[in-house]
């Protein structure tokens, strides 16, 4: 009998701690935070209701964790009384009650590694089964034992030397772990990869630039497709019912000089819908054809069910870097609605297929061309949020224009392949806001003004709150219905991270990093 009990014990221990079904039903356990965006739909919304406009003013720091780097951008995973965090080539497990370190993991960054066109950052880990998954700057996807942080496997995604890198939080679905690559300023050819969660073997790769013979290849002049960019550096979303993975694709390269890559340059600046089992393209929608302003569409896609044009629909929505808000049918990719949500001077509007109607003369030039938004766009990688209660999309918005310059671009592996740059308008003319947009139309419901253009993600909660941060170090809560400020805390460093919410001992908490410090707040 004793043997049977022991055997049962071990069988239970060997079973997956966090099976896929738990992540797919993350809303049923709001005390945890099981995937980058809180759910597969990309909402970054916590259903927890303990914190409300009435009591959020009493929020206090419960503990803090300091990273040994200048800026933390991690979006933690919370499960089973443990918070899992990441940093460039590092991961750690923290006791959720105290912030004390349970284990640390590190993979040395090679001395000749270079980040070409982005900071040395890591935006979070992923959890599935009995493993934690971390993507590294030197282009490995690593699986760690949840309990000890010991390495189970490390899969080489690519060679970092020509400019490939991984900064994103992986997306773990069913039995696979998905990653995308950074390097859009280095002449890479981007892709989305899926790896077997158990073995680390690659299951499929979707090339974000079609190769010879594939549909869309004709949208690239000559050999430009080989070095055309199309990075995939922000975590996607997943619809378990449709078994479709949605992923945002980055800018074409060279960024600001499009002469050598005439054509629409598919699938840059697009959302793609991929079959979860095979990686096969189901549909694509290109926000900015033949982009020359570095307006990556590497955003977290938001999957929303809402009424539009008279009927209930499965939508995918996105406030895009190019300053337009889009609502598409997520089964077919059909464009349904769109409008500008921030200042833009490059398009008269969108046509009935969602294609921008260009204003002539807005491309970068030798002498410089002033265009809104700047190359960082009306919003960038940090997450927007969707609240099913208010039916509003919350997005940290940047109001910045830039003079764009076009310069020569020569491809040399492992160097910048950008073809120009920008000069932003003076700092005193730049500003930002947290904006609330109606989900079906993108029409602004309210805004909370910020002194400078933000770099922080947004979290909404079931108690009717919106959390975000400022460059000046403020971490704050707004009323989700009105945008009225209700609570703020000076975190001592710029907020360049995504907030999350979870429970400690049944009490709701909120965590976000400011500068090098991760703060955990509770009542």
């Amino acid at each position: 009998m004793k043997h049977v009990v022991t055997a049962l014990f071990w069988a239970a221990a060997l079973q997956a701690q966090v099976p896929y079904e738990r992540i797919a039903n993350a809303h049923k356990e709001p005390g945890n935070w099981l995937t980058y965006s809180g759910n597969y739909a990309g909402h970054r919304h916590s259903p927890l209701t303990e914190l409300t406009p009435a009591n959020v003013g009493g929020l206090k720091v419960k503990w803090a964790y300091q990273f040994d780097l200048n800026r933390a951008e991690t979006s933690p995973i919370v499960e089973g009384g443990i918070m899992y965090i990441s940093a460039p080539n590092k991961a750690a497990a923290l006791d959720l009650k105290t912030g004390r370190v349970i284990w640390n993991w590190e993979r040395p960054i090679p001395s000749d590694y270079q980040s070409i066109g982005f900071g040395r950052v890591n935006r979070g880990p992923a959890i599935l089964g009995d493993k934690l998954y971390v993507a590294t700057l030197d282009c490995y996807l690593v699986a760690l034992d949840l309990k000890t942080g010991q390495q189970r496997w490390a899969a080489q995604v690519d060679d970092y030397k020509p400019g490939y890198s991984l900064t994103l939080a992986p997306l773990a679905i069913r039995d696979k772990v998905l990653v995308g690559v950074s390097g859009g300023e280095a002449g890479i050819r981007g892709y989305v990869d899926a790896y077997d969660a158990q073995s680390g073997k690659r299951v499929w790769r979707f090339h974000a630039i079609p190769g010879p013979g594939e549909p869309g290849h004709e949208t690239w002049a000559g050999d430009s497709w080989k070095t055309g960019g199309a990075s995939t550096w922000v975590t996607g979303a997943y619809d378990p019912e449709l078994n479709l993975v949605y992923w945002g694709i980055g800018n074409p390269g060279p960024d600001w000089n499009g002469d050598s890559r005439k054509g629409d340059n598919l699938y840059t600046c697009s959302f793609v819908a991929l079959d979860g089992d095979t990686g096969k393209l189901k549909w694509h929608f290109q926000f900015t054809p033949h982009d020359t302003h570095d307006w990556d569409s590497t955003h977290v896609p938001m999957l929303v069910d809402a009424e539009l044009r008279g009927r209930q629909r499965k939508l995918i929505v996105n406030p895009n870097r190019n300053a337009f808000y889009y609502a598409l049918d997520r089964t077919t990719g059909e464009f349904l609605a769109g409008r500008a949500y921030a200042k833009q001077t490059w398009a008269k509007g969108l046509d009935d297929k969602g294609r921008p109607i260009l204003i002539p003369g807005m491309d970068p030039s030798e002498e410089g061309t002033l265009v809104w938004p700047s190359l960082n766009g009306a919003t960038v990688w940090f997450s927007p949020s969707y609240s099913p209660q208010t039916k509003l999309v919350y997005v940290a918005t940047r109001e910045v224009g830039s003079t764009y310059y076009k310069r020569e671009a020569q491809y040399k592996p492992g160097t910048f392949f950008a073809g120009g740059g920008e000069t932003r308008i003076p700092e005193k003319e730049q500003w930002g806001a947290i904006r609330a947009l109606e989900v079906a139309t993108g029409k602004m419901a309210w805004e909370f003004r910020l002194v400078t253009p933000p770099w922080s993600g947004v979290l909404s909660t079931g108690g009717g709150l919106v959390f975000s941060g400022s460059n000046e170090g403020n971490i704050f809560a707004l009323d989700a219905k009105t945008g009225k400020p209700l609570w703020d805390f000076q975190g001592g460093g710029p907020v360049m991270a995504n907030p999350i919410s979870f429970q400690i001992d049944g009490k709701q908490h909120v965590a976000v990093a400011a500068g090098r410090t991760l703060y955990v707040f509770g009542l």
Partner: protein
Amino acid sequence: MWSVLLFAGGLAWGQSPHEAVPDVTLGKRIFDSQCAVCHGQGGTGGRGPALTKPKLAKAPDEESLRRAIAQGIPPEMPGSWQLSVREVASVARYVVGLGQVAPEKLPGDAQHGRAVFQAKGCGGCHLVAGQGTARGPDLSAIGAKRNGAHLRASITQPAAHLAEDYLLVEVVSAGKTVRGVRLAEDPFTLQLRDGAGALHSFRKSQVQRWRHLPAESSMPAFARNLSATELDDLVAWLASLRGEQQ
């Protein structure tokens, strides 16, 4: 690695002097296509810091700048193994020029300009080489940053040429109006220093109103207080301040 050896040893440098003659035009071309991605066209800043300063914090002289370009500055700035010694030197020479106004021939008498500066009480608000009152911008290296025309206009119409970080703000709180230079501001709070040098810190939600005064300067306009000769002399002296002497 070779760049480290090259620059640290100085041997290769010394052996091929012709290869290392910097060419500013070449430097600009390389900068525009490879450095401006982060530092902005003309070095105005972006993802990377602005380079339009007389002295760069991490590369205060041309040699250290060459080293920084070749080796990079970890963790954010990549090195440039792809550039030749001459190309690196050319970029460095171009970047040095970005932060410095070339010396120009100006009409006034610089020595007399120093007396004008003292007589008009400019030191009551400005430091020069550590002397004076630290209220307005430090002018010790102003000649390297601003040309004669700009200096002249800043003296006669200060509000039209407001120095960075000297925005005037006005706050009405508890029935009292406070004006001063903005020291810091975030969405929730505002810190300013008034004309008497006192610090005020406000929560925006607790004041009656507050506003920026972008068209005003705390510096008085000297258009009518200086003769044409005095103005020429003062400008000539300020233009001679390049942060080196004293």
